C-alpha cells in the first residue's frame, strides 16, 4: 500500500483538472496519478504495458473510478480489480455523474466501497473531495498487506 498516492481513472480533461483543483483546495497532499481509460488503469495497477517498471506491490491508497470510460468501462475495471489477489482489497470509490439506480446497484454488486455522484456545483464538489480524502486517507484503517 502506498499511502502517498491516489489513482484517478477519468477520461474527461475538465473533470481531471477540477478534481486536481478540488484536491488542492481540500488540502490533500497525496500525489494524484491520472490514467485516462480502463485499459491504462489496469496496466498501471498490474504493472504491465507502459507501467511494466512499476512495483505492483505498491498500490495506491485509494482508487477514484469514473464509470463511463473508453475501452474498458468502470464496471469492467472494478471487476478486474476485485478478481485479482493483488488488488482485491483496494478501496475503490466510484466518482461519477450518474445517479441511475441501475448503475448504483450494479456497481455495489461488483464490490465497490463507495459510490459518490459528482456534485455539479464546484463548492459541493470540493466538499465531497475533502470528505473522501478525510475518510479514506485519514480515518480508514487499510488492510495490512501480507
Amino acid at each position: 500500500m502506498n499511502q502517498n498516492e491516489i489513482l484517478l481513472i477519468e477520461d474527461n480533461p475538465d473533470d481531471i483538472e477540477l478534481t486536481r483543483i478540488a484536491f488542492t483546495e481540500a488540502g490533500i497532499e497525496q500525489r494524484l496519478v491520472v490514467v485516462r481509460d480502463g485499459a491504462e488503469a489496469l496496466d498501471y495497477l498490474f504493472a504491465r504495458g507502459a507501467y511494466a517498471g512499476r512495483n505492483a506491490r505498491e498500490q495506491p491508497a485509494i482508487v477514484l473510478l469514473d464509470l463511463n470510460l473508453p475501452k474498458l468501462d468502470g464496471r469492467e475495471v472494478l471487476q478486474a480489480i476485485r478478481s485479482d489477489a493483488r488488488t482485491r482489497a483496494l478501496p475503490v470509490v466510484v466518482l461519477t455523474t450518474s445517479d441511475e439506480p441501475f448503475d448504483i446497484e450494479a456497481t455495489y454488486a461488483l464490490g465497490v466501497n463507495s459510490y459518490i455522484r459528482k456534485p455539479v456545483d464546484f463548492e459541493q464538489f470540493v466538499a465531497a473531495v475533502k470528505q473522501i480524502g478525510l475518510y479514506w486517507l485519514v480515518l480508514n484503517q487499510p488492510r495490512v498487506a501480507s
Partner: protein
Amino acid sequence: MEVADHRYRDAFAHADTGMALLAADGTWLEANAALARLLDRPREALVGTVAHKAIFDAPAAARISAAIGAGGAAAKGAERQVLALEEAGASPRHWQLTLSPLPDAAGALTLLQVEDCSAALAAQRDQDMLAYGISHDLRAPLRSIGGFAARLADSGLAADAAAGADLARIRAAVVRAEHLIDALLELSWASRQPYRDDTVDLSLLGEWVGAELRDADPARDAEIAVAPGLQAWGDEHWLRRMLQLLFDNAWKFSSERERVEIAMDGEVSDGKLALAIRDHGSGFDMRYAGKLFQPFQRLHASEQGGGNGLGLAIARQVVDRHRGRIWAQSQPGQGSTFFVELPVAAGTTP
C-alpha cells in the same frame, strides 16, 4: 368449431388483432387475416396444423402447448395467460401472446391473441438510453461550466461588480439546469421503475412530508392538518414523493398568505380512496387546468413560485402507475384542492 352467429365469425375475421382458435391438442382451428399478416404466413399454412411449433422456437412452442389442453391453464380454471416471446434474428421481434380458454368450451378451445410489441420495446429501450445519456453526458459539461466559473470568481480577475454579477448568473443557471436534469430523470424513473405493492399509510407520509416543509422554513407560520387513518395500496416511496410534490406546491403558492394552511383528508368508497389536499394559496385559473399535469406547462412565472414545470407531471406519473386519477379544482385567490384517487387494496382499481 361452431360459431352460431355469422356476425361473430365476421368480427373474428376482420379484427385488427391477430387471433387464432386452438384445440386442446394444439391444432389451430381458425386464424384471422390480421394474424396471418403479423406472422407473415398465409392463413392456409396456419389452420389445421400445430402452427406455433413451426413459428416459434421449441421452448416457446412448448410454453404455448403447456398453457392449453388438458393440463394447461384452461383445465386449471386460469382465466388467461400472457406469454412474452422473443424471436432470435437480426432484428428480433417481441411477441405478446394472450391465451384465454373459452368458458363455454370447457377447456376444449383456447383463444390465442398475438401482438407484436417490438416497436414498443424498442421505443422503451431508446427512452432508457436517452435518460441514461442525459444523466451522464449532460451533467459533465455543466460541471465544467460551473466549476471554472467558480474558479474565475475566486481568481479575482472578475473583481468589478458587473463581471462578478455575470459569473453569479452563470453559476445560478448551472444549478437550475442541474435541477432540471434531476427532475427529468425522476420523471423517467417514475415511469420505468418497478413499483412495490403494499398497504401504505398515507396519513403517516403526509405528517412526515408536512414536518419536512416546516423544518425547511421554521419561521413561517403554518398549519398542516392531516386526517388520520388514510391508507392506499401501492409503492411507499413513490406515494410519499407524490405527497411531497403536492404539499410543496401548496406551500409555495401560499407565499402571499400570512400563514400556510394545508389540509389533507380522504374517504373510501368502492375499494378506492379519494384523497383531497387543500390549500388557501394563490390558486389558478381553471381555464388552464388541462395543462396542470403536463411537463413544462407552468401556470406561474418563477417569481410567483413556478418551478421547473415537472413536479405535477411526476405526481401524475406516480398516480397513473397506481392506476389512479388526479385532478385539481381552484379559484384564483381562493386556493386549490388536488384530488387523488388510489386503490386501497390489491386488485381494487379506481
